[in-house]
C-alpha cells in the first residue's frame, strides 16, 4: 500500500501524531490533550499536514479515548436493553440499569428454539421504552449466536421508533450472554456520540483537503472505516493497542517478546508470540463492563513517569497514585521523571527536581543523585513485578484438551521492547530488574502514533455448522442458513474464509499480504440415544492483528 499514512493517538496527557510514508516517519508531532478531544486531534492533524500534500494521504487513523471517557464518566446515551434468556442464571441478575427488560423466549445451546418469542410482550415493552424517550436499543439473546432469529425479530418489532438498534449476535460470535448484553449496551449507548464525532472529523479532513478515508483504531489493533463501524465501543482501549502495533512496526518481533509502553500514568504491558500480539481470551473490560470486544492482551501497571514516589519504612515506593505532573515540570510531588531530570536523563527544571527529591534522599541517608538512581531501580522493580504477574496470568490460562495440557506451551519471552517517553532512560534499569535484554527502537516516543498509522484491517468470525439440526451460523457475518446433513468441515472452512474476508473488506482497504488463519477447529459427533445423528463443526477464521509495513 503506497501513499502517506497519518496516525494520531489521543493519550491522557499528549496527543501524538506521525506521518509515515514507505516505512519512514516523515513528521511527528506532540500536542497537549484538551478536554475536547476533537480540538486536540485537529491540532495534531494541522501540524502533521504542515508541508505534506493532503492529496497524497492514503489513510488517516485515529486512536481516541472518546468512548472510554464516555463510559467512565457515565456519558453514554440512555439505552433500552431487551433480552431473551431461558434456562440458567436469572436474567434479572444481569441488568445493567433500570431500562433492562426481559422478553419471554428462549433458544438452547444447540440453537433450538425452546420457548417462542412472546411478540405481544415485546411490543408492549418496546412501547414502554419508546414512550420513556429512549432512542437507542440493545438487543441480546442467550445463545443468539447459535440462532439469531429472536434478536432479528425484536429488531423488526422495534421498527423505526428507535434511531439505532444494536444486535448482540452481530457484534461477536463467541458464547457469553452477560458480555453480549454489555457489548450491545455500549454499542447502542456510544452510537450517537460516535456518529457526531465521526461527522465532524470527516468534515475537518475535507477542510484540510484530505480525501483519504478516516479510520478508527480498535482495541484489537485493527483499523475500521469510521463510517462502517457498528460498535463504537470497539475503539475503547485502542491506546495500548496502538503502542503494541507501534512496537511491532519499529523492531523485528520474531521470538516471544514483552512490549512495554512506559507512560506518565501507567506502564502498559503486551506480549508477542510468533510475530503477533496476544489477544484477550474473552474480550475487553471497559470501565466496569466485561465485554466480548476483541482486544489485544494488555495489562497496565500504575507505575509511570509521573507516579508518586515516597519512602516507606526505608523502602522506596513508586505509584500507584499520581498527583499531577512531576515537580520538575511544575508539579508538587516527587516522581521517577524528577529522578531522570536530576540525573540529566530528561528535560525539566533540575532545581525543582532536586528540591522534590531532597526529603527522600534525607530519609535514605544519601545524596540526591544516589537517591535518584535508587528511585529508578525501584521503578524498574515495580515494572518487572508487573511483567512477571502478566506472564503468570497468561501461562495459567486453562486449556480443555489433553494435548494442550500435556504439550502445554508456556510463554517465555527472550527479550523486551520498550517504547514511550522515558523508555531509553529507564531501559538499563529494567534490563537489570527483569534479567532480559531490553531494546528501545527508533521513534520510541511516538510508537503509539506509528502503530495507529500502520495498523492493518483485521477481522474475526466464528462459524458453527450443526448438521444434525441442519443449520450454519456465522453471526458476525450475518449468516444463518440451512445446510444439508452431509455438510463437511471443509465447506465450513471455505464459508468462514469468505465471511472473514467480506467482514474485513467492510472495515476498509485490505492488506493483500494478510493471510486468513483458521483456528480452534472442533468437530464432534452428535449422538442421540445411541446413534450418531450428525456432526457439529466449529471453527474461528481470522485475519490477525498486524501492520502494513515496518517503520524505521
Amino acid at each position, binding site marked *: 500500500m503506497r501513499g502517506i499514512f497519518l496516525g494520531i493517538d489521543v493519550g491522557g496527557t499528549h496527543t501524538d501524531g506521525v506521518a509515515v510514508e514507505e516505512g519512514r516517519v516523515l513528521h511527528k508531532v506532540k500536542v497537549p490533550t484538551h478536554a475536547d478531544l476533537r480540538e486536540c486531534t485537529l491540532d495534531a492533524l494541522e501540524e502533521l499536514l504542515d508541508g505534506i500534500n493532503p492529496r497524497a494521504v492514503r489513510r488517516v487513523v485515529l486512536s481516541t479515548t472518546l468512548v472510554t471517557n464516555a463510559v467512565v464518566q457515565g456519558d453514554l446515551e440512555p439505552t433500552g436493553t431487551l433480552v431473551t434468556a431461558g434456562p440458567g442464571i*436469572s436474567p434479572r441478575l444481569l441488568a445493567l440499569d433500570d431500562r433492562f427488560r426481559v422478553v419471554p423466549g428462549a433458544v438452547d445451546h444447540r440453537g433450538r428454539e425452546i420457548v417462542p418469542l412472546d411478540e405481544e410482550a415485546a411490543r408492549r415493552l418496546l412501547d414502554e421504552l419508546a414512550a420513556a424517550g429512549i432512542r437507542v436499543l440493545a438487543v441480546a439473546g442467550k445463545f443468539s449466536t447459535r440462532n439469531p432469529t429472536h434478536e432479528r425479530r425484536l429488531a423488526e418489532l422495534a421498527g423505526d421508533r428507535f434511531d439505532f438498534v444494536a444486535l448482540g449476535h452481530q457484534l461477536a460470535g463467541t458464547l457469553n450472554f452477560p458480555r453480549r448484553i454489555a457489548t450491545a449496551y455500549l454499542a447502542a449507548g456510544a452510537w450517537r456520540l460516535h456518529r457526531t464525532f465521526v461527522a465532524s472529523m470527516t468534515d475537518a479532513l475535507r477542510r484540510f483537503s484530505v480525501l483519504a478515508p478516516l479510520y478508527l483504531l480498535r482495541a484489537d489493533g485493527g483499523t475500521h472505516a469510521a463510517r462502517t463501524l457498528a460498535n463504537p465501543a470497539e475503539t475503547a482501549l485502542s491506546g495500548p493497542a496502538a503502542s503494541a502495533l507501534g512496537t511491532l512496526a519499529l523492531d523485528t518481533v520474531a521470538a516471544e517478546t514483552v512490549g512495554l509502553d512506559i507512560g506518565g500514568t501507567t506502564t502498559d504491558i503486551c506480549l508477542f508470540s510468533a510475530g503477533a500480539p496476544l489477544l484477550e481470551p474473552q474480550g475487553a473490560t471497559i470501565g466496569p463492563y*466485561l465485554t466480548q470486544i476483541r482486544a489485544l492482551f494488555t495489562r497496565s501497571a500504575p507505575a509511570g513517569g509521573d507516579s508518586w514516589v515516597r519512602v516507606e519504612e526505608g523502602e522506596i515506593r513508586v505509584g500507584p497514585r499520581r498527583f499531577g505532573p512531576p515537580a520538575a515540570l511544575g508539579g508538587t510531588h516527587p516522581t521517577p521523571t524528577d529522578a531522570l531530570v536530576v540525573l540529566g536523563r530528561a528535560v525539566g527544571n533540575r532545581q525543582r527536581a532536586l528540591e522534590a527529591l531532597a526529603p527522600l534522599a534525607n530519609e535514605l541517608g544519601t545524596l540526591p543523585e544516589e537517591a535518584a538512581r535508587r528511585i529508578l531501580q525501584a521503578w524498574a522493580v515495580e515494572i518487572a513485578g508487573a511483567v512477571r504477574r502478566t506472564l503468570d496470568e497468561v501461562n*495459567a490460562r486453562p*486449556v480443555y484438551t*489433553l494435548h494442550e495440557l500435556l504439550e502445554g506451551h508456556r510463554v517465555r519471552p527472550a527479550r523486551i521492547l520498550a517504547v514511550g517517553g522515558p523508555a531509553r532512560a529507564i531501559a538499563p534499569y529494567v534490563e537489570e530488574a527483569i534479567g532480559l535484554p531490553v531494546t528501545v527502537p527508533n521513534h520510541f516516543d511516538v510508537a503509539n502514533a506509528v502503530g495507529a498509522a500502520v495498523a492493518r484491517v483485521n477481522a474475526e468470525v466464528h462459524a458453527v455448522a450443526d448438521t444434525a439440526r441442519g443449520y450454519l451460523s456465522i453471526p458476525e457475518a450475518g449468516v444463518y442458513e440451512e445446510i444439508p446433513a452431509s455438510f463437511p468441515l471443509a465447506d465450513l472452512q471455505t464459508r468462514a474464509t469468505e465471511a472473514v474476508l467480506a467482514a474485513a473488506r467492510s472495515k476498509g482497504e485490505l492488506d493483500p499480504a494478510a493471510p486468513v488463519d483458521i483456528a480452534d477447529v472442533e468437530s464432534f459427533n452428535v449422538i442421540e440415544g445411541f446413534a450418531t445423528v450428525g456432526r457439529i463443526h466449529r471453527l474461528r477464521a481470522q485475519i490477525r492483528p498486524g501492520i502494513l509495513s515496518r517503520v524505521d
Partner: protein
Amino acid sequence: MRLRAPQRTGVVFFPAFDWAIDPTHPEREERLLYTRDQIFEEGLLDIEGVVEYPPRVAEMADVERVHTGVPDLETHTSPSHLVSAGGAIEAARRVLDGDVERAFALVRPPGHHARRVVHGLRGFCVINIEAVMIEHLRRHYGGLRVAVVDTDCHHGDGTQDIYWHDPDTLFISIHQDGRTLYPGSGFPDEFGGPNAFGTTLNIPLPPGTTDDGLLHVLDHLVLPVLEEWKPDLVVNSAGQDNHFTDPITDMAITAQGYATLTRRLRAHVAVLEGGYSVQSALPYVNTGILLAMAGLDTSAVIEPDYHPDLLQMGERSRQYVERLCELMLEKFLRRDDLRAEAVRGRTHLEETRSVFYDGAGIREQQRERVRVCDDCGGTMVLESWENPARKVLTVELPRRCCLACRAQGEDAFHRATTDEYALVELRDRPHDRVERKRRAGG
C-alpha cells in the same frame, strides 16, 4: 457490572475433548461439550468470586497410594486419568489452602467404580479420582476425617471397596437400587468392615425417585449423619445420571433437585462422576450445581424438557424411602454396639468375592482377610487373581497402624513368595511407601 458470588468457589474444568473410551461410548469426547457451551454462555467463569483453575497432572505416586495394578498400574493409567484425578486434587487443594470456600472439579473420565485392585476398565472407570484426591490430601495436609457423599445414580462400589476398612472415611452412597442397575450392589447391609463398621452407608432408591425423595434422604439421613460424624472435609461424588433424561438410568431428579442438594449438602469439594444425558441434563445440572456452590440464585435453572406432571413419585416408593431413612439412621447411631456383636470372639474376618470388569470382559476373584482391631483400621491381606497362575497378594497397613497390625502385616509380606504370587505388595500407609516383590520374567 460484574455478578458477585456470595461464596468464593473454585472450578477446575477439564472436559478432555480429545479422549473417549470409544467413539459412541457414553464416556466420549463431547460429553462436556454442551456443558462447556452453557457454562461459557452463562458467563459463569466471569462471576467475581468464581475462580477457574487449570488441573494439575496427578503423579503416579498419587495413584499408587490407592491402587494396586495388575500386572502394574502403568498398564491402566492414561494421561487422561492423571489429569482427571489431578483436577480433583487441584480443586481440593484450593479449598484446603483457603483460596476458595468450595470447589467443583468438573472433570472426566470418572472414577467411582475403580476399586483398590485394578485389572482393567470397570463401569467406565479405571482410577478412583476421589480416593486419589483424598489420599493426596491426607499425605500433604495431615489426617483428615473425610466424608464422601456419592450421589451418582450407580452405587459407588469402587470407593466403597477402597474405604471399606477405613474408620476415618465415611462413605455414603445414594443410588438407584442395585436390583435394577449396574453394578448391582449397594444394599443397606453393606455397612463397612469390622474396624470401620457404620462408616459405609448405602441408600438404594427405587427407580422413579424424584427431587422430593432425594432431598428427603438428604435431610433425614445424610445431614444428621454428617452432623453426628463431624468430618473435616465433605466430598460430593457428583454424578448427574439421576437426571430424568439420563439414557442409562431410571430416576427422576431435575436440575433444581441437584441445585437444592448442593446448597444443603455444602460439600467442600464436588467431583463430577457419571451423567450421560449430555445435551438435556448436563448443561443445566452443572450450571445449577455451580450457581448453588457460589451461593447464587438457581431458580431459573429449569430444563426445557421439564414437566412437573411427569415427575411424580408413587406413594409406595415415598413411604419406602422414608422408612429406609429411619432404619438407616437408627442403624448408624447404633454402629458401635452392632460392631461389637459382629466381631465378638473373632480375631479375623475373611471374605471372598468375585468382581466383573465390564469394560475389560474379565472376572477377578478376591480373598480378603482383615485383622479385627480396636486400635486401628486393621491389617488387610488381599489375594486377587484373574488367572490363578498369576495371583497377586497385597498387604495393607492402615493409616494409623498399631504395632500388632504392623507386625502381622510385615510378616505376611515376608512369608509370601514369588513362587506363589506373581506380585506381592506391602502397602505401608503410615510411611507412604509401597514395597514390591515381583516374580522374575514379568
